[in-house]
C-alpha cells in the first residue's frame, strides 16, 4: 500500500481550475519530486494534500482518505508541509518556531530530544535559538522551516520550492540534509521544485506537471533521459 495516493485530483481557486485530475503515488521511504513550469499546478498539488485548497477526487494517506479533513487535522496525521515562502513566524524566536512545529504529535518532554535530533542537522540553530526568526537570512529561514517540520517527526515531509531565492550552495546543503534524512531515518519526502536538476538528483522518482495534469512520470534516471524533459526542464 502506498503511503500517499492521489487519484484524479481536481482543485480550484474560485472560478479558476488549477488541477485537472492529478494522479500520483508515493511509497513509504521514497523521495518523489514534482517538476513543472510556473503555474503547472505543483504548489496546488501540495496544497490539495494539506487541505489548503478545495479539492475533489481521492487523496489517501496510509490508506485513509484525507478529503474531509481540515489542514490542522491533516497535520495531526503526520504530514508536515513546508510551504512556499517558508511560512516561518518572523516575530517569534527560532526556539518558539520549533515549539510550534511540535504543537501536535509531540509532548513537551519529547520536544527536547526531537530538537537535539534536528540540531544534529543544523548545528547553528542551537546557539541562535533565542534569535528572532525574522532576522535570519533567507537560507537560514528555509532551514528553520524544514527543522520546524522535522520536529513533529512526520511520516511524510512535503517541501514546496525549497530552492526559491537561495544561493546554489545553500540549496545543495538543503538537499544534502533531505537525502541524509531519507537515508538515515527512512523519511518519505514529496518535493516540488523548479530546479529539475537538483530535484532529480535527490529523488527516486518524479512527475512532470503541465497545466494541471501529469504529463510525464518515471524514475529519475528515466526522466533524465527523456528528451522532452531534458529540453524543457534540464536545458541540454
Amino acid at each position, binding site marked *: 500500500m502506498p503511503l500517499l495516493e492521489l487519484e484524479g485530483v481536481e482543485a480550484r481557486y474560485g472560478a479558476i481550475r488549477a488541477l485537472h485530475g492529478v494522479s500520483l503515488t508515493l511509497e513509504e521511504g521514497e523521495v518523489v519530486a514534482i517538476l513543472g513550469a510556473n503555474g503547472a499546478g505543483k504548489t496546488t498539488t501540495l496544497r490539495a494534500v*494539506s487541505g*489548503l485548497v478545495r479539492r475533489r477526487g481521492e487523496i489517501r494517506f496510509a490508506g485513509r482518505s484525507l478529503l474531509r479533513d*481540515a*489542514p*490542522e*487535522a491533516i*497535520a*495531526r496525521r503526520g504530514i*508536515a*508541509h513546508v*510551504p512556499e515562502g517558508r*511560512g*516561518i*513566524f*518572523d*516575530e*517569534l524566536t527560532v526556539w*518558539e518556531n520549533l*515549539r*510550534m*512545529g511540535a*504543537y*501536535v*504529535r509531540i509532548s*513537551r518532554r519529547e520536544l527536547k530530544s526531537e530538537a537535539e535530533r534536528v540540531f544534529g542537522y543544523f548545528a547553528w540553530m542551537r546557539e541562535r535559538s533565542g534569535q528572532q526568526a525574522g532576522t535570519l537570512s533567507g537560507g537560514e529561514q528555509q532551514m528553520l522551516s524544514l527543522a*520546524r517540520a522535522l520536529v*513533529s517527526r512526520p511520516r511524510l515531509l512535503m517541501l514546496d520550492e525549497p530552492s526559491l531565492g537561495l544561493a546554489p550552495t545553500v540549496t545543495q546543503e538543503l538537499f544534502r540534509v533531505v537525502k541524509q534524512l531519507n537515508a538515515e531515518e527512512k523519511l518519505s519526502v514529496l518535493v516540488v521544485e523548479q530546479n529539475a536538476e537538483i530535484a532529480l538528483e535527490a529523488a527516486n522518482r518524479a512527475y512532470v506537471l503541465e497545466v494541471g495534469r501529469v504529463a510525464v512520470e518515471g524514475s529519475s534516471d528515466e526522466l533524465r533521459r527523456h528528451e522532452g524533459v531534458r529540453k524543457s526542464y534540464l536545458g541540454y
Partner: protein
Amino acid sequence: MQQVVSGLASGAIYASLALALVLIFRSTHVVNFAQGEMAMFTTYIAWELMHRGMSYWPAFALTLVIAFAGGVAVERVLIRPVEQASPIAIVIVTIGLLIAINGLAGWIWGADVKAFPSPFPNKAYDVAGVAVSSEDIGVFAVCVGTVVLLWAFFNFTTLGLAMRAVAINPVASRLMGVRVGWMLALGWGLAAVLGAIAGMMTAPSVFLDPTMMLTVLIYAFAAAVLGGINSPVGAVVGGLLLGVIVNLLGRYVDILGSELRLPSALFVLLVVLLIRPQGLFGHVVVRRV
C-alpha cells in the same frame, strides 16, 4: 504628584481595554467598536449577581467566566461569517453589536444609574508625602496584575504561543496543526475578560449606566493607537501614559477645564499619529496585495 498617581489608576483601566482591542486587532484585524459595550454589559451582569446576594469576589469571578464565554460566542456567531468580507462590513457588524448591546442593557436594566460597589476600603495612605487612595491602588493592582498574568500566558504556555503564531501567520499555523478558528475565538474571549475587568473597575467611580464605557472606550482607542494598534506593550504603556496626561492636562492647564480634557487628549493623539502613524511601539503593517 497626586495627579500622577490617580492618573495611573485610570490609565490602568484604559490600558486593560486598550489591550483587549489590540488582542483582537492583532489576530482578527478587526477594531471592535463594541468592546466597551461588551464590558458595560458584563458589568451589569456582575451587578445583577451581587443584587441577587452574591458577595463581591465570587460575583467578580463568575462574571469573568461569563464574559469569556460571551466573547467566544460573539466571535463564533457574529464575526466568523464576515471574516472574509470587506473591512467596512466588519466595522459595521461591531457597530451593530454596539447599538444592540447598548439597547439591550437599557431594556433589561433601565437607564437609571446604579451604584456599583468597590471591593477596596475607602482609605488614603500617605506614601512619601503623597496621599494615595486605596481605591487607586486596588484598581491599579487588579488591572496591572491581569496584564502580567496575560503576558505570562502568552509567553510561557503553548496555547499562548499558538495564539501569537496565529496572529503572525494563520496559514502556517494551520499547517502546524493549530485550530485557527478557535484561537481567534479564544482571543475574543480573553479580550472580553479584560473588558469585564475594566468595566468593574470603572463602575464604582462613575456609577453603572449603559453609556458608562463610551468615554473609557475612546480613551482605550486612543491609548491603543498611541501605543501602536498592533503592539500589546504599546497598548499598556499608551494607556498609562494617557491616564497621566489627561489628569495633568485637566488639572494644570486652566484654559482647558474639565470639558476639554477628552478633546485635548485626542488632539495629542492626532499629533502623535501625524508624526508616527504606526504609533509609539507599533510597526508598519505591510498589506499584501
